[in-house]
């Protein structure tokens, strides 16, 4: 991985052992704040038919899959601007149609949010991308590390999957 993230500080919110190990292997330092890269991994939601979802469950999915991601990215971007530095945001989660209607809504919203923030913050040097996938293993970690690195400096506002049914 040729030191893709050497010298970079990364804050990872959410649970993905593959991403943590790939980022460490790529030379990144894991930090809580003042990061160069912010990764948010949303937990998978329960798969239920829409008419069986309570509003509380629906709201919890929107909060984790959309609202927290926007607010976290907003804070991260503000921190980058305050330091006069660019940065990279990476959202990771399940594909739009993989789980329930709550996921479909949250992931669709997130995809277009990704495209929006990628352009809105482009001249702050802040790139914003999403990986929406069923994959949880090594390839997820490596692609996440690559997209977060300067090797992907020309990738922003991109929403990608990994496996066939993503």
């Amino acid at each position: 991985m040729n030191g893709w993230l050497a010298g970079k500080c990364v804050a990872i919110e959410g649970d993905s052992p593959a991403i943590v190990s790939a980022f460490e292997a790529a030379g990144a330092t894991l930090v809580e704040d003042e990061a160069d890269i912010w990764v948010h991994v949303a937990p998978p939601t329960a798969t239920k038919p829409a008419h069986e979802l309570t509003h509380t469950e629906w709201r919890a999915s929107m909060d984790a899959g959309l609202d927290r991601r926007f607010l976290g990215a907003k804070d991260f971007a503000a921190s980058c601007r305050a330091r006069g530095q660019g940065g990279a945001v990476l959202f990771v989660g399940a594909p739009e149609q993989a789980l329930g209607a709550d996921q479909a809504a949250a992931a669709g919203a997130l995809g277009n949010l990704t495209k929006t923030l990628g352009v809105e913050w482009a001249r702050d040097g802040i790139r914003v991308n999403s990986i929406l996938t069923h994959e949880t293993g090594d390839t997820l970690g490596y692609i996440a590390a690559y997209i977060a690195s300067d090797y992907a400096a020309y990738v922003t506002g991109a929403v990608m999957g990994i496996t066939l049914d993503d």
Partner: protein
Amino acid sequence: MPVPAHHIVATPPPFDAPPYPVDIFAGHTVLVTGGGSGMGLAMAKAFAQGGANVVVMGRSIERAQEGAAEIAKLGVRTHAMSGDVRLPEAVAAAFDEAEEALGPIDLLANNAGANFPVLAEDISPNAWNAVTRIAIDGTFLCSTEYARRRIRAGKGGAIVNNSAQYVWTGFPGDAHSAAAKTAQATMTKKLAADWAPHGIRVNAIAAGFFPHASSTAGNREGGTEPLQNMIPAGRTGSIWEFGWLSAMTCTPIFGAMTGQVIVQDGGESLRRSLMMPDYVPPRERADGPWGWK
């Protein structure tokens, strides 16, 4: 207008710092269609930086040879040949020649394409056929020839297609390429599904503007400098970062990735505001940045 000095522009590592080890493709041969110049040459060089031997196939043998000579400077074996990707017999013969020269083709990069801005009403049947069939039939014929050989040999593999940033938006003033490049992107997903059981991965890069010697806008008066501020990222792409991402999709590092179309365009294809600049029909903007006069 130049990019204002207070804007921050993200830039990639330099060409001589590729993202993978120098031997990641060692012992493998890649066939790059249209690999003699432009984006195909960038793909070919990226594979060579990972140690792959490279077959350059092009319509012009001279250009293929020039490209191969540049690639060889990176320390790999090369073979240049001419061939027409629109003809199944020519494609089969090209694979035979390539395999005789450098051994089995382990990886395939479908880059061959033609493109020139033109009003839709001025596209002749010949021009339509040339642009669409090189990209659509060419990608199909080269990919299927490759896959049949890999399946017969009981080996997996990887294909990368050079698609374009305008595949989801249309491209007024370039109707033939708009159709052709989207066909490449959508067939990517289905070819990946068809060949997943055989361990052959298929991905595409939907590339933005990576200026090179033969790109239309790169030849404008004043070069590409005036174009930097038109792109959200604040710059046109560096052609080697396109080559790297293309080659990356074929590495075992991205071994589970297939059926994907990755947009690499500095945000260029995305909307910038609710209201856009004044609409000008293509025939009334011949002198614009993608004009043709």
